[in-house]
């Protein structure tokens, strides 16, 4: 038993390369293997994907922390702090949608997660009237900002340039600046890049959750067959 756990430790230390070796043999061996082995291969593939995604998540988070530290350096530690969090009642702008596969029971299913950033998916599901109204208000807003050229900043100019998808872009920009408003009206550009990095991290987290779901599903399948 001690030898077995020692072997397991060794496997875990080299966990990265192990699934890749299995993967390269996948095509040749798949024809000969039974359902059980296919399930194990699927499990190892999921584990490999999970580790790769975790690497990407680490990079995205590192970038986010670096940008946050830069913003804190330029704005001051008191202006980028957890004490500024808004404790008033508020709803999350970025949420998840969970979908269960149709062919499995709810108790043993592997749920699929998808991200709805800044509540865009919900709004895109609504009728076209809303988007038409938004585009009309967006045009009015540009006319207003053109009248006062001194007050226009870089982000306004950028959104004005992209005429297609103006309503979606302006909604995202509005939601992003609302999320940063707790740190003051004028925030460091580094804070905005940190925000984008953490958004990327969120996307990776949703993919990780799906990979986790696949791992657990394969694992329970293997256990059932064994």
């Amino acid at each position, binding site marked *: 038993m001690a030898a077995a*756990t020692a*072997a*397991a430790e060794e*496997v*875990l230390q080299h*966990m990265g390369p192990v699934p890749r070796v299995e993967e390269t043999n996948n095509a040749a061996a798949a024809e000969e293997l039974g359902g059980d082995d296919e399930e*194990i291969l699927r*499990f*190892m593939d999921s*584990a490999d994907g*999970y*580790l790769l995604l*975790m690497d990407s*998540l*680490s990079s995205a*988070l590192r970038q986010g*922390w670096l940008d946050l530290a830069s913003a804190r350096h330029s704005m001051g530690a008191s202006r*980028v*702090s*957890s004490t500024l969090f*808004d*404790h008033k*009642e*508020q709803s*999350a*702008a*970025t*949420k*998840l*949608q*969970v*979908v*269960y*596969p149709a*062919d499995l029971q709810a108790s043993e*299913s*592997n*749920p*699929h*997660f998808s991200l709805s*950033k800044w509540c865009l998916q*919900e709004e895109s599901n609504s009728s076209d009237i809303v988007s038409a109204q938004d585009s009309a208000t967006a045009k009015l807003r540009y006319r207003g900002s053109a009248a006062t050229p001194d007050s226009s900043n870089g982000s306004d100019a950028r959104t004005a340039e992209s005429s297609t998808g103006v309503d979606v872009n302006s909604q995202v920009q509005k939601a*992003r600046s609302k*999320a940063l408003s707790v740190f003051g009206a004028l925030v460091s550009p580094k*804070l905005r890049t*940190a*925000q984008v*990095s*953490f958004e990327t*991290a*969120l996307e990776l*987290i*949703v993919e*990780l*959750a799906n990979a*986790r*779901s696949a*791992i*657990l599903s394969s*694992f329970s399948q293997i256990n059932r067959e064994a």
Partner: protein
Amino acid sequence: MAGRSNIPANNSALIAIIADEDTVTGFLMAGVGNVDLRKKTNYLLVDNKTTVKQIEDAFKEFTAREDIAIVLISQYIANMIRFLVDSYNKPIPAILEIPSKDHPYDPASDSVLSRVKYLFSADSVASDRR
């Protein structure tokens, strides 16, 4: 997505976070922060004053809430309540251990990848018997 249907879709589920200040700040900037009517938040900021009991309580609360689909927890914090994290095996909310600034990700202590360890140890036991 072809094989999937929207049967019991939980619309607009939340992401909960148990992490250090910078990680929580970053994810709140990305729009995941939620405060309900009772002033309950979906995040716990862990610093050197936070006790293990508080972390345990937050973990239990987040995993029991029906409106939360993913619980993010920094791996070094998960190590403090490892017995709770390892014993959790429900599909929803999904527990994800993430790296933190001072503690890089270690696959060996991830509760999900412990399944790989288990599988290989079982295989090696079987091969020993042969």
